[in-house]
């Protein structure tokens, strides 16, 4: 049974090696390698999850011979395992869903590059999830950035390149700050392993030393990760990056990359600095306010947006706002809600991106909102997918979005001090805004287009049978959504338990 303890490390290594391996082979082989890899990763991490749940505690995996505090460590708890598994699943589905589009948009020579990128991306995500060492985290953040950049610009047109540059710049700023922050931390504590830093920080605070540098460090790290995960004021790069890259990249970026950073931030809060200390500092209020602003402003810009994919991108700005708002509440319920929303949003947003692409394809490839009239009939499965996604985003019961909204609201209600009302009001308002732009689109895609227009513009319609993989993906996503919406109980339980293991 203890062999499972190796799985986290193994899965990371697998990803990296398969990346190297892929670079040598033809693209078809690359595809299979990639798929099998992801499947194995999913399986391994699922086993890890099972193991951690069975033991009910987290375990530490020592890399190399040196024990703490010198060596490097991985740490796997229920929450980490859950995240890893989920990331794997989402990545799998996104790739399958976007595959056809990938063939159309990217020239075949670059395909195995693409797969390399995804492998590396997965590796970095897993590393971010599992690592117990801040500097390792930094390194993988950078790797993550690079691979993400690759994913964006794999589709060679001006937009994507420009987008990737912007993305690059912002995230470099972010990682710079992160690095600076952890250097200061290291300076203060003399450790890089999270658990050790934690202890020495407790020591420091007990004697009341170095309070200002500590605060600065926390602040810098938060800002850095906030920039990388496109929190409200720093989201300028996001719409282009998500809006113009090839669809599976968009799905992966929106649902995984930013979430990886957020998860890292969470670990820093809980495992490095300690949540009580964070709660004491004002950083949370800052995040809270930014989160609220993000929820509103993101939705508003989405309403003004005429390009459907950019619209979805903007909506993820709003959703990230939700997550930070949850952190900002500074209560365990809030954090639980945020983590659940990470999952829910990942499942929903990638579904939205992928179904949106199906809709735009049958509308002469135009992404303009107005061209989409009646596309829900031309490509039924995509229409259904989009509707499901929208309903979940709006927060209709039985869909995942509803549960997370429920959790957020409950956390807000249970919140001791005056953060309650603003949270509730903003929640309600942002729900309305979501309803406005998503429902507008749903209505639009189900208003049949005049036959004459269809003929003139040469729209064609697609049967679900014609693109089996796509159909299957959409169905899987829908099921996933419903699962999160209706069977949320065990997942929330896992999250709570994982948080318990964190400390």
């Amino acid at each position, binding site marked *: 049974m203890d062999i499972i303890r190796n799985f986290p490390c193994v899965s990371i290594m697998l990803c990296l090696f398969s990346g190297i391996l892929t670079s040598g082979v033809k693209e078809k082989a690359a595809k299979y390698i990639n798929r099998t890899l992801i499947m194995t990763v999913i399986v391994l991490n699922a086993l890890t999850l099972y193991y951690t749940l069975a033991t009910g505690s987290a375990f530490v995996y020592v890399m190399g011979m040196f024990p703490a505090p010198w060596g490097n460590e991985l740490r796997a708890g229920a929450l980490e395992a859950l995240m890893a598994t989920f990331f794997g699943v989402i990545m799998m589905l996104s790739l399958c869903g976007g595959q056809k589009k990938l063939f159309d948009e990217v020239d075949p020579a670059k395909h195995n590059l693409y797969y390399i990128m995804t492998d590396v991306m997965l590796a970095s995500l897993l590393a971010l999830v599992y690592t117990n060492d801040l500097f390792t985290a930094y390194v993988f953040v950078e790797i993550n950035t690079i691979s993400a950049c690759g994913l964006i610009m794999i589709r060679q047109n001006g937009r994507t390149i420009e987008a990737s540059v912007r993305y690059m710049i912002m995230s470099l700023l972010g990682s710079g700050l992160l690095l600076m922050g952890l250097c200061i931390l290291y300076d203060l504590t003399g450790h890089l392993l999270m658990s050790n830093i934690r202890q020495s920080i407790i020591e420091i605070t007990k004697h009341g030393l170095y309070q200002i540098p500590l605060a600065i460090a926390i602040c810098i790290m938060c800002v850095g990760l906030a920039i990388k995960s496109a929190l409200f004021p720093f989201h300028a790069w996001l719409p282009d990056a998500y809006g113009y890259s090839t669809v599976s990249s968009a799905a992966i970026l929106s649902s995984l990359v930013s979430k990886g950073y957020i998860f890292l931030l969470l670990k820093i809060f809980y495992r490095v600095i300690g949540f009580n200390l964070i709660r004491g500092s004002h950083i949370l209020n800052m995040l809270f306010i930014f989160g609220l602003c993000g929820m509103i402003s993101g939705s508003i810009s989405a309403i003004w947006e005429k390009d459907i994919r950019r619209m979805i991108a903007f909506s993820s700005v709003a959703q990230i706002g939700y997550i930070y708002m949850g952190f900002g509440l500074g209560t365990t319920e809030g954090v639980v809600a945020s983590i659940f929303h990470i999952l829910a949003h990942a499942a929903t947003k990638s579904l939205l991106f992928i179904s949106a692409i199906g809709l735009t394809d049958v509308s002469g490839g135009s992404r303009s909102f107005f061209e989409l009239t009646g596309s829900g009939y031309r490509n039924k499965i995509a229409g259904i997918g989009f509707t499901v996604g929208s309903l979940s985003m709006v927060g209709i019961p039985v869909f995942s979005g509803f549960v997370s909204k429920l959790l957020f609201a409950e956390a807000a209600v249970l919140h001791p001090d005056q953060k309650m009302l603003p949270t509730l009001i903003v929640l309600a308002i942002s*729900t309305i805004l979501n*309803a406005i732009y998503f429902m507008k689109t749903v209505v639009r895609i189900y208003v049949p287009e005049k036959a004459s227009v269809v003929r003139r513009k040469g729209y064609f319609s697609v049967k679900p049978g014609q693109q089996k993989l796509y159909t299957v993906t959409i169905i899987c996503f829908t099921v996933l959504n419903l699962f999160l919406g209706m069977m*949320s109980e065990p997942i929330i339980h896992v999250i709570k338990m994982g948080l318990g293991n964190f400390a």
Partner: protein
Amino acid sequence: MSQYWILAAILLPIIGGILTPVLPFKKRKQMMFYLETVMLVTSAIVLALVAHGTMEVFHVVRFVRNLSISFKIDGMTMIFGGLVAVLWPLAMLYSFEYMEHESHEKVFFAFYSITYGVTLGIAFASDMLSMYFFYELLTLVTMPLILHTLTREAILATRKYLYYSIGGAAFALIGLIFLIVYGTTCEFEPGGVLDMTKIAGKENTLLLIYMLAFFGFGVKAAIWPLSSWLPQAGVAPTPVTALLHAVAVVKAGVFAIIRLTYYSFGTDFLRGTWVQGVVMAFAMFTIVYGCSRAVKETHIKRRLAYSTVSNLSYVIFGATIMTPLGMVGAVCHLVCHAMMKICSFLCAGAIMHQSDRHYVYELNGMGRKMPVVFGCFTVSALGLMGVPGLAGFISKWNLAKAAVESRNVQAYIGIICLLISALLTAIYMMSIVIRAFFPGKDFDYGPLEGIKDPTWKMCLPLCLFAAGIICLGLFSSPLVRFFGDVAAGLY
């Protein structure tokens, strides 16, 4: 065992509706027969359940922790479920005739019968979450019905409807959360479920939240200033406007408000607080506002829609009196108004369908040509005015009685609002009747040639509803007594 009958009652029309476009019907008649059977069977089940009496909660799906989709039968369920079950098959029968010339009617009927199931879901829901669930669902399944004509204004109306309802639901959700946190349970229980020990010191917040939730549900109940979607939604085919925007949807909103006030927050907690003043004031204003807009409106259906706006606020006014009597009045008007308004709407529909005239000033002298329709319309008009011996009088009597009993000065003023609106009602309804029957001395019936009463499919429901109005007016006392028991929490 009979618990599963509830599930059957809810699912049958839904599944039946989903099947409608799929099944290969040779002739239109077959589809009509099929749908009508579904409707009747469902109604039969529902009425049987209602007659069978109250029933314990039973859970179907569990969401989070103690939150679940669950059903039970209590007094309000009996009332609302029974009402819907009675009205729906008739309206269905009517709509067969009406929709004959409309396009893609299969989809229409599909959603029409799905809506039946969802509405029943609202009626049977045993706790806030289940009700919220079906409430949201109702919004979605009625959307295609408003969209049906696919004209530009239909699209705009649909959008507006969606934004308003979902936005309202968002605020309702807040109330729901508070109930989950501060309530002893989520179930509906007469007298409310708030846990007084928990809320100690937080009263004002809770009152504020109640207000938010009230207006959240108030969207569907078309309370000013959230009412403007209702007249606009009149673009939908008349059976929809009649059934949904006079009974199902709007009444669901009112029903929700009653649930919220009497079964969740509890009147003892709310009575005499500032929030009662606020909500009652809004209800009173809406009563007058709706009528005055109706007087100004010349499009028949929109006029009726505005009148619905004001009548819904009668019910809300009754609810906001927050005494058992108030609830009796509210429920009483809920039922009576359903009868009267569906009757008048169906009449309007019949007029449009037969003569394709949509404006009040086009109706001169039609009374001669369509005596049955206009006869029924007159009955409903008199009923809405509150002429004694018809349904409207009874409900207004009960409302006013509650208001007087409550010893609440604001409620006294409310009575005056009721009477003013009754007068305005007289103006906007009678003016139609008079036009129809007394077109003026030298009026030539030439242009009206060929206009005649519709076939039995349309007339039968009309006459039944008219008869219902009169019966309610004359022999209401057992019903009212039952309402009294419900309000007293006996059911």
